[in-house]
């Protein structure tokens, strides 16, 4: 699964996700990617999210919207909400994977509980940062 989230100069947010699924998956199996609110989510008032990993669990826990809800109603920061969803909500039920998220202030979060997650970011200075493992 690949994805991107962005905050533009106007403070608008967007998310996009694209996937091939799981090797040897059942024909017709639909993962979380096209389920708005699960693998993909964006609302200028809170955050934009793209997830990757064990799709069925991201669907059951509506991961993207869960982060939105924690920010919107509990006042959590993006980092707290994103980390909680991956580490405290999904991980205990066997959800492996991670997500990327940004808010309208340009803050970002990239939590994952798998061995690695191909990931990268670029901010206003134009410097490209990429990583795979927990470096």
């Amino acid at each position: 699964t690949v994805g991107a989230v962005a905050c533009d100069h106007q403070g608008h947010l967007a998310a996009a996700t694209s996937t091939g699924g799981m090797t040897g998956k059942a024909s017709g199996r639909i993962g979380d990617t096209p389920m708005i609110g699960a693998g993909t989510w964006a609302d200028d008032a809170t955050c934009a999210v793209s997830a990757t990993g064990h799709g069925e669990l991201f669907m059951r826990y509506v991961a993207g919207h869960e982060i939105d809800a924690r920010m919107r109603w509990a006042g959590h920061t993006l980092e707290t909400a994103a980390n909680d969803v991956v580490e405290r909500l999904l991980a205990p039920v066997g959800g492996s994977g991670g997500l990327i998220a940004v808010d309208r202030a340009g803050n970002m979060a990239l939590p994952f509980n798998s061995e690695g997650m191909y990931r990268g970011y670029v901010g206003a200075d134009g410097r490209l940062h990429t990583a795979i493992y927990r470096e």
Partner: protein
Amino acid sequence: VSPMLVIHGGAGTIRRENMTPEREAACHAGMRRALSAGYAVLSRQGSALDAVTEAVKALEDDPLFNAGRGAVFNIDGHQEMDAAVMDGRDRRAGAVANICGPRHPVLAARAVMERSEHVLLAGDGALRFCRDAGLEFCEPAWFATERRLQALEEERRRRSAGAPDERDEEARHG
């Protein structure tokens, strides 16, 4: 507002002990290409929506990652892809599921968002919609890679043998 673009290429990473310097370098290069494609949009005051679309297109073109070209195979030996896009300005959203044909599934999702009244189209109906929208299509061979076929064959052998699923994340998620 300071613009920010973040990407992921999936959580199905190769175990560190099995990663080669060449493959690691190629993965970093692929991610840099995607970041550059999206950042080019943001640097000219473009929209977040266009930035994420361009970044994901670049990742879909890279056979190292599991989407578009290089997507994994299902148990019947076919590739099925899903994609979604969402605009934070107004909660417009579009998605496609269970398709293989459009070179860039993310553009198919965006077409659903921008050219239909729906959020999610799947299967044959989605493909008809994509053709009517004039999206670029590719033959199945474009999306297939030898590495993904090998992963499928290994999984079929495992199932035939009744062996437990001890695949690592790379083999499972692609």
